[in-house]
């Protein structure tokens, strides 16, 4: 079983039907463990119980970037290898990525409210995530704007790759802009200084959310393959109807001319 074998959509459907229940089960188990652990994680001495929001915010923020990475690899697949499943993978990932990015924004704002006193602060991290969210929405708009899926796929692939190159630049400039305007950042969260009692639940939750994404992504890819089959069958149906009505019209005209000739 190699990647080439997966290129056949029918094989992908068969394989994913087998894998999907296991993926879903693993996601549920890990999420349960993660939620249990984060519920019983101790309070932070500075932030109190609000640190619990971190267990849900950080995995979503991680996924917001991870999904763009998945879409970039799929875009390479579209443009370079013309892999038939790459378009499907890229298209299916966009709404899921946008949903996780939205969650990262929402939980970040809820986490910041007790510390900043406002729901929205032009904090460097949150601002970058907001721009990423806008880019996800733009990409989804592009997918929706064009009805021919393969044409939309190539355009979206170019845009995804340009976005992937630009994202670090945007991140850097927003960080720079932020230090220019407000030197003291309230949100301190270094990965290495994190205590073990926080780190383990956080890691479990991150893995669980990644598995959740993989599960949803595989399921959405299956839907997308089916949607394309519906589309091609509908086009066959439409052409058949057009053909038969054409033939019918032609024969009727012949009859009419015969009738005229007879008269």
């Amino acid at each position, binding site marked *: 079983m190699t990647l080439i074998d997966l290129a056949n959509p029918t094989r992908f459907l068969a394989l994913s039907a087998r894998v999907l229940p296991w993926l879903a089960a693993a996601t549920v188990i890990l999420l349960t463990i993660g939620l249990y652990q984060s519920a019983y994680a101790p309070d932070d001495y500075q932030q109190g119980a609000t640190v619990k929001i971190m267990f849900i915010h950080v995995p979503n923020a991680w996924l917001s970037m991870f999904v763009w990475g998945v879409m970039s690899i799929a875009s390479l697949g579209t*443009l370079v290898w013309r892999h038939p499943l790459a378009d499907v993978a890229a298209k299916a990932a966009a709404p899921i990525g946008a949903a996780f990015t939205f969650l990262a924004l929402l939980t970040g704002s809820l986490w910041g409210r007790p510390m900043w006193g406002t729901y929205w602060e032009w904090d460097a991290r949150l601002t970058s995530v907001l*721009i990423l969210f*806008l*880019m996800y*929405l*733009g*990409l989804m*708009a*592009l997918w929706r*704007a*064009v009805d021919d899926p393969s*044409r*939309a796929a*190539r*355009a979206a*692939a*170019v*845009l995804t*790759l*340009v*976005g992937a*190159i*630009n994202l670090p*630049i*945007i991140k*850097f*400039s*927003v960080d*720079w*802009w932020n230090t*220019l305007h407000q030197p003291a950042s309230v949100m301190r969260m270094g990965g290495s200084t994190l205590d073990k009692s926080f780190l383990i639940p956080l890691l479990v939750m991150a893995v669980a959310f990644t598995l959740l994404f993989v599960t949803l992504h595989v399921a959405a890819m299956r839907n997308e393959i089916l949607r394309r089959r519906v589309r091609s069958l509908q086009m066959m149906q439409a052409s058949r109807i057009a053909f038969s009505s054409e033939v019918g019209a032609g024969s009727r005209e012949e009859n009419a001319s015969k009738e005229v000739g007879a008269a």
Partner: protein
Amino acid sequence: MTALSALIRRDVRIALRVGGGALIGVLFFLTVVVLMPFAVGPDLALLSRLGPAILWLGALLASLLTLDRLFMADHEDGSLDLITMSRTPLELACAAKALAHWLAAGLPLIVATPVLGLLLNLDMVATGAVALTLLAGTPALTFTGMIGAALAVTLHRGGLLMAVLVLPLSIPVLIFGVAASQAVIVGPLSFGAPFSILCALSLVSLVIGPFAAAASLRHGLD
């Protein structure tokens, strides 16, 4: 080389003649800047503080709106097919077209900046700084916007969708352009650091833009 210079000369001539539309960009720029005092009030102190930001936003929107038809007109009359089929690499042809567009539509914006700076109560030094940052930054806007223009022509869809796709990519240029001009006017910061990053962004977009535009044209036109 002669093919590229011919392409540049042709594009500039088309943009500047009647119906070309390059100078409408300047008119749009002027209108946006004139609108601003009606929104924020005629307070000259406030306007001079916001001046660089207003000028940069105006230039950003103006260059975006004129870019919409960078490839569209060529696609309609079929010369885009000739360009993609010619022996000149498509990347270079795209870069030449963007350069021509910048000469015809970007440079007039910079020429108009001193007049608009007057309206916004900017002094000589500040106006010069804004004009200089625009000179360094507008190529980046043109070359990233070109990706949007190439997508627009392959999707037969322009306007708002392209603006939504391209504007987030131009945030870094906006940040460093405004920061460099503010550094001259008020900032404790030195002009050099943001300005050199702005130049770097222009150079990066000079590389990425033509490649991405050529890729989307090559994969999109069939």
